[in-house]
């Protein structure tokens, strides 16, 4: 399973902006809390991280060096 955006529940104010802009349906509001669902088509657009006014969502990048195959 692929990595998904990470919610910091302590920072999340449940405003729902991230849920409203998520185009792949990975973020949903359940029981007055934002939940992340594993979906195949999350393209890591990072818009949820961008719109969150509280810095409660992280979309971290792994940084690697390309390995060449001879």
């Amino acid at each position, binding site marked *: 399973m*692929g*990595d998904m955006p990470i919610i910091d529940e302590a920072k999340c104010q449940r*405003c729902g*902006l991230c849920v*409203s*802009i998520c*185009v792949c349906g990975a973020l949903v509001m359940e029981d007055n809390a934002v939940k992340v669902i594993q979906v195949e088509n999350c*393209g*890591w657009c*990072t*818009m949820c*991280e*961008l*719109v969150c*006014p509280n*810095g409660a969502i*992280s*979309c*971290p*990048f*792994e*940084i*690697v*060096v*390309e*390995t060449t195959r001879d």
Partner: protein
Amino acid sequence: MAVNLDSLKSLPYFSGLSESVLLSVNQHVFEKKAERGEILVFEGEPAETLYFVVAGVVKVFKTSADGKEQIYRIIRPGDSFNDVPILADGVNLASAAAMSAVVLNGIKKKDLEAVSREYPQVALNIIKVLSLRVEELVSLVEDFSFRRVSGRVAKILLEHTGNGGGERPRLTQQEMAAMIGTAREMVGRSFRSLEEEGAIRIERNRIIIVNQEILKKIAGITG
């Protein structure tokens, strides 16, 4: 016409106004709803309306000649967009689109002018809003002109590269921005620039350094 008074008085444009003045202003304010993806303002068209976001998120963006979109601002509830061209008698400087279903409050240019003439507090509030915009833009200009943001992002990528084993460092764009003292948007822009220069490739949540020499050169690292 007329919208919820509570949402109106929470806007910086109309803060500090008495109830009676708010009621008067409110006669000129209208509500507009839009679906995700709907274009709300087209770049280059005459600026006619100042908008406030009540619910949802709006992006202000420009599209380059080759079709690439650059987001300039994210407008959340309580914030406004299209301020400058409305007050400058100009055309829309950028386009704006709904990133989700949105509820907006709008006021026509001629009505805003009439209200600010009648109620000086509104004019003072406008000056404050514009001052904040200028501060944001000065910060952006500083990024463009004095700091080689792409070079600093390149340096961070080189310093935080996983070695193929053990725990690999993972960084958000916000964290990188904080590390080099710039705006998150500048980091995203640098990613695209570094990709175009052939230094990196982005595959979902992986930044792959495809040419370390180019990246080092951009980072100003010699040897």
